[in-house]
């Protein structure tokens, strides 16, 4: 399928405050996930697999690692003669404006208006899922909708920032939403994915800006709930929102479940990522590994339980690693003991060190540290 009628817009750095420590040195979209991915791989791959041929990535903050990761867009088949991948950094005015969705969309309005697509899909990088946007477009058109909000049914993820909860609806026609409610029962909450008719997006963003009403959820969606045809699309597959460090840890650990992996990494709709030419993982004769995900380029000479090893991790002899996320190229020295730890990339844990977090509070060691 070459190209459909959707323009994809990915906000690479929204909601990064929820996971401040890991996002300190990078954007939300370039946070490592699941042993070899970055969070932006999910929206990018979902868009590519749904036939979306033109994708703008709105970046700000420290987006160097993100640019390094997505490059020309080749792994997602978005390096195209026509359309393909566009990086949209702040080019004038205040870079912080790009932390605000309304201001960012206003700043890139020319890019949006010059696109031939009639629909715009807005998507953040905080949701890990495998979703078919073509199906959402089909329903959007059937419903004659102006805006379609992708939602999930369940209890709100912990520490979620400013969730949108659908409070009144008939079938999937939404008549009211509430923002940031304190509720602990099951509800329909948004996954920060919106499919919007392009004309409406442009007009309403300009209205918002002219009144200086720049809260996307409140001023764009909630205030216009009666004015437009707003529909919900219930996503029933596996999804996990990265709303906090704990949620990040749990979402990673969910990859140990075979049914989650089969669904998330569906071979007919693969999650693409930038590849590195590592050799397969090498296991030593004294290694002992149970219930873990191990990437190419790893060398495992010690013991690993319930953990995720990103590419190029070296677990030396006698080391014991349980319930950990070890990011790329980190080295765990001989006879170390690690439990409930998240170790960022390029870190060296010297021989014999011991670090214990708790299930409710995994410890985090920053990028390129030496312990």
């Amino acid at each position: 399928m070459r190209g459909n009628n959707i323009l994809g817009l990915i906000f690479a750095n929204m909601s990064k405050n929820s996971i401040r420590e890991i996002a300190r040195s990078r954007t939300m979209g370039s946070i490592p996930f699941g042993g070899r991915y970055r969070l932006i791989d999910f929206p990018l791959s979902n868009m590519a697999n749904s036939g979306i041929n033109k994708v703008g990535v709105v970046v700000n903050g420290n987006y160097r690692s993100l640019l390094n990761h997505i490059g020309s867009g080749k792994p997602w088949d978005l390096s195209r003669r026509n359309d393909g991948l566009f990086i949209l950094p702040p080019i004038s005015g205040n870079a912080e404006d790009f932390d605000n969705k309304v201001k960012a969309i206003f700043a890139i309005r020319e890019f949006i208006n010059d696109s031939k697509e009639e629909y715009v899909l807005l998507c953040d990088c905080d949701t890990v899922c495998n979703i078919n946007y073509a199906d959402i477009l089909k329903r959007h058109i059937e419903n004659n909708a102006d805006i379609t909000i992708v939602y999930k049914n369940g209890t709100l993820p912990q520490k979620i920032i400013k969730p949108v909860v659908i409070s009144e609806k008939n079938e999937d026609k939404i008549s009211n939403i509430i923002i940031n409610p304190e509720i602990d029962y099951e509800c329909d909450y948004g996954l920060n994915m919106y499919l919007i008719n392009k004309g409406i997006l442009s007009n309403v963003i300009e209205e918002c800006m002219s009144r200086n009403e720049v809260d996307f959820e409140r001023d764009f969606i909630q205030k216009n709930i009666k004015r437009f045809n707003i529909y919900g699309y219930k996503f029933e597959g596996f999804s996990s929102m990265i709303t906090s460090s704990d949620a990040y840890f749990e979402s990673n650990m969910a990859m140990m479940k075979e049914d989650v992996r089969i669904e998330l990494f569906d071979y007919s709709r693969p999650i693409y990522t930038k590849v590195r030419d590592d050799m397969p993982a090498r296991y030593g004769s004294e290694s002992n590994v149970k219930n873990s995900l191990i990437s190419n380029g790893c060398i495992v000479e010690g013991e690993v339980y319930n953990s995720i090893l990103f590419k190029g991790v070296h677990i030396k002899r006698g080391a014991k690693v349980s319930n950990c996320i070890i990011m790329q190229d980190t080295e765990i020295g001989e006879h170390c003991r690690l439990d409930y730890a998240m170790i960022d990339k390029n870190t060296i844990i010297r021989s014999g060190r011991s670090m214990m977090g708790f299930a409710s509070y995994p410890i985090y060691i920053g990028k390129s540290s030496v312990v």
Partner: protein
Amino acid sequence: MYPKQEVVAMLLAGGQGSRLGSLTKKLAKPAVEYGGKYRIIDFPLSNCVNSGIDAVGVLTQYQPLILNEYIGSGQPWDLDGTNVGVQILSPYQRSKGASWYSGTANSIYQNINYIERYNPDYVLVLSGDHIYKMDYSKMISFHKSKNADCTIAVIEVPINEAHRFGILNTYSDGEIYEFDEKPEFPKGNKASMGIYVFNWKKLKYYLKQDSLNSDSTNDFGKDVLPYMLSKGEKMFAYKFDGYWKDVGTIESLWEANMDLLNSENKFNLNDNLWRIYSRNPIMPPHYISNIASVKNSLISDGCNIYGEIDTSVIFTGVYIGKNSRIRNSVVMSGAIIEDDVDIEYAIIPENAIIKKGSKLGKLQKNQKLKITVADYTD
């Protein structure tokens, strides 16, 4: 106009590799898998790129589909340049008839046009059935320093095995005075690695001469090289002393895989200064379950391991079921090993399905090493 290239590499990839049996039923030998995620051709291609050679012609003939698809635009090896890069060269039809490549030399002869467009000084001829890392630029410097017409890379083999190889006898400065193909009584132990550097003008002349000789089998080793020597051309042997493995037989392919598990072996595929590039499949990391056990093995992305693995190489996307034991074996990509299977000293081909309860490749005591290839065709 194409930019001049000092060196053009020609990679002979048309061979059937009949000694690899069912592994090459549907693909050419250079496309056979090796080392958990690679295909043999990744090695000469990566060596070319790492040696600074940008123009690589790949001569294909036997079962080219998988090989052609694998090479594609050459992007994984950075060989997708605008004017240079990898070029697949298959036999073609001319205004006066068409012919298959009748031998290694003939395949180059039929592609003189490809080489000429780069106006090279040297042509490097490579074969697609060896596993090694080699800096060809050093060999070319040697060739230049000797003012040679042809340089052949050699590796020293144990003298008692020399009868299996093409042996080159040389003077002390490396100049070749005799070719001795599989000699019964070898005089030396320098075996040809099938890697040749030629001065292009000389090679072109001899390829034309060879094409006019109706008695010739159009082969480099049998015809062109001995003929050049007989005409008094300056031919040198270039000694290589790294890891080099001919993977032309099932046993040697198995051994080459097992070499990667030997900690004494210095052949490192994770060398940042000499990366081996390949077309990487898009799969999540592999999963080792609670009931699995893995020792002394290589395992690639996308695998799901529920059984017991010891001293084996497991390729991308393999499934190993419960209570299955894999020992001293090579399981190629996409294979499914169901529950309660016992495999030893075997190669499981790509995408094979080994049914529940199967037993494969048990060795009898004191039996000579024999590797079983699972009989599977999809």
